[in-house]
């Protein structure tokens, strides 16, 4: 579920749509041979076999949803990184880098590394210690059931719809690579991914993700080095891009001016992405955080974040730079998302193409399985158990979790078929992404004020959440329908998130100060370094 915020809003929505629209052209680019097919199929069989094998000891809901809290730091860290990067991103990032240059790397660097470190040291200890299954459940403990339910419904709706979209994108790529019909591709990809997620739960998702992370990084690193070799090395590569003319002068610049033509001015990157969207994603995304909640210990959960942050440093190098390298190979590609496929087609030898496509499948599968598992967890814990059947034994929730995994797989298949029949396929994707983007600013306020400020009250959180949603929706409506657009850039999501965050934050603080504080027993263990009111002066 990479780029749910930030990158996804700016880049990937277009990439998914373009991959869907240009699937026939992509198919021509992917000239796979028998060895390539053999590698891909071997990889698929191994991944699914591993997932099924890992599911043999699942006895309870805790085993299924949180892997029995047994996950090691290295697997959790790799799973987080690969779940954050979908296959669509591999194409989309390279395509954006082809147009805008290394500035796209901001989404993995300033958009991930600082917030992963902060999350690991500040937020994860409280999430892990509270023994929750979901982030809305944590918000419910800290605030009230209203906040929990709104957060759960928004995430639950998003995850369910996103599942169908990712499944559809996966099927399109399988059709492209293997030449199957779209219907067969949708059903086969759903059944394969659904099968190991159903049997193995979070444990299967995380360990297969770790394998997928290795394959994905290997495939992308291979493309980087072969691309650099064909460009004549690092020096000639940089010189060739600079020699292309004035339009390419900023291609090696991470910080672009406020009035840049690209959608990545430094103010949006620093304030919108770095201060709001990225923290909202890393501090509150159920798909990402669920694997940390399943870590063996609090220290392993923290370690996973540090390990993930170190891995993240390499991601722009192996995914963004190849997009720029394509400029040295062919600076006249009309459709930017063909940049990477063109490089792959023209430079990778037989066999290596199979490894790259295995990496591509790895990224696809890791996003779909995470989405499926998180959707099931969230609906079981925050809706089914909270409102309908609260007091059954843990085995009951395991059964319900598995039933829901099957239902979500079927739902994903139907949703994917529905999308495939739409004439305007991008609209549904854009609507879903827009709804989630509206939630990011207020969602961050909930997490920040909830964990960092003991004075935040449940009523204030609810007011902040609703006012933030109204602000972001209002700004989007005004921007889209005013005679002169409100914001001066085409995709103002970074700024809408920033303003909704600020409005939500101010109202949360004001209402908190006007309402009675929460009792100590509700705060201890959930608020950063809070040990009760008597010790409040010295520790908070």
């Amino acid at each position: 579920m990479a780029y749910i915020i930030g990158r996804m809003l700016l880049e990937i929505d277009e990439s998914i749509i373009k991959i869907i629209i240009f699937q026939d052209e992509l198919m021509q680019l992917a000239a796979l041979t028998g060895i390539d097919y053999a590698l891909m199929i071997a990889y698929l069989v191994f991944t699914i076999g591993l997932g099924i094998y890992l599911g043999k000891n699942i006895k309870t809901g805790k085993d299924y949803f949180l892997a029995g809290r047994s996950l090691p730091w290295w697997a959790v860290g790799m799973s987080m990184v690969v779940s954050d990067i979908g296959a669509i991103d591999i194409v989309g990032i390279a395509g954006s880098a082809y147009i805008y240059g290394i500035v796209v790397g901001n989404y993995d660097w300033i958009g991930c590394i600082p917030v992963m470190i902060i999350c690991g040291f500040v937020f994860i200890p409280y999430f892990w210690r509270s023994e929750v299954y979901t982030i809305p459940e944590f918000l419910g403990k800290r605030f009230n059931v209203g906040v929990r339910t709104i957060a759960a419904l928004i995430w639950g709706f998003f995850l369910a719809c996103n599942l169908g979209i990712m499944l559809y994108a996966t099927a399109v790529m399988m059709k492209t690579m293997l030449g199957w019909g779209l219907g067969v591709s949708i059903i086969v990809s759903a059944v394969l991914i659904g099968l190991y997620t159903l049997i193995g739960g979070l444990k299967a998702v995380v360990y297969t993700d770790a394998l997928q992370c290795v394959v994905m990084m290997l495939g992308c690193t291979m493309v980087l080095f072969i691309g650099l070799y064909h460009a004549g090395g690092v020096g000639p590569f940089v010189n060739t891009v600079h020699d292309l003319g004035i339009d390419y002068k900023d291609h090696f610049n991470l910080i672009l001016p406020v009035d840049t033509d690209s959608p990545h001015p430094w103010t949006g990157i620093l304030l919108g992405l770095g201060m709001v969207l990225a923290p909202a994603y890393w501090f509150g995304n159920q798909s990402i955080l669920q694997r940390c909640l399943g870590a063996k210990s609090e220290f392993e959960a923290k370690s996973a974040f540090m390990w993930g942050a170190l891995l993240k440093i390499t991601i722009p190098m192996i995914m963004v730079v190849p997009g720029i390298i394509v400029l040295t190979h062919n600076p006249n590609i009309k459709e930017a998302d063909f940049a990477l496929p063109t490089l792959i087609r023209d430079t990778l030898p037989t066999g290596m193409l199979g490894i790259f496509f295995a990496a591509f499948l790895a990224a696809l599968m890791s996003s779909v399985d995470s989405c499926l598992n998180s959707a099931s967890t969230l609906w079981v814990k925050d809706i089914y158990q909270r409102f309908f059947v609260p007091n059954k034994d843990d085995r009951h929730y395991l059964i319900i979790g598995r039933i829901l995994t099957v239902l979500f797989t079927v739902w994903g298949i139907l949703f994917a078929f529905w999308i495939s029949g739409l004439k305007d396929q991008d609209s549904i994707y854009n609507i879903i992404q827009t709804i989630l983007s509206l939630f990011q600013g207020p969602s961050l306020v909930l997490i920040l004020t909830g964990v960092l400020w003991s004075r935040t009250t449940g009523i204030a959180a609810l007011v902040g959440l609703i006012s933030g949603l109204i602000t972001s929706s209002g700004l989007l409506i005004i921007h889209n329908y005013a005679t002169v657009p409100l914001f001066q850039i085409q995709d103002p999501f970074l700024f809408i998130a920033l303003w909704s965050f600020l409005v939500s934050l101010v109202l949360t603080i004001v209402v908190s100060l006007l309402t009675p504080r929460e009792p100590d027993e509700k705060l201890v263990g959930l608020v950063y370094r809070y040990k009760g009111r008597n010790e409040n002066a010295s520790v908070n």
Partner: protein
Amino acid sequence: MQALIDSIANILRVPGDYLRELTLMIPLSGARTIFILYFVALLVWVLTMPKSEVCGVLPGKKEPIDLRFYAAAALIGQIMIYSLFS
């Protein structure tokens, strides 16, 4: 309805344009400094965290691990990258 939306947009545009003008006055070298300072501030925060919150022993290891080292390595990597590509 259109008139109402345009009126609200016009009102909101005033502070928005003002802030945009303010940020336009910051030279690109200033922006670079802000980015680097952000990472440096985080690095200082990480290095000054209490040992109890950053040290622990992983299964199979005898010696405790200090996570500050890894966090600092990631942040120093960021400082180098943003110094190089800006």
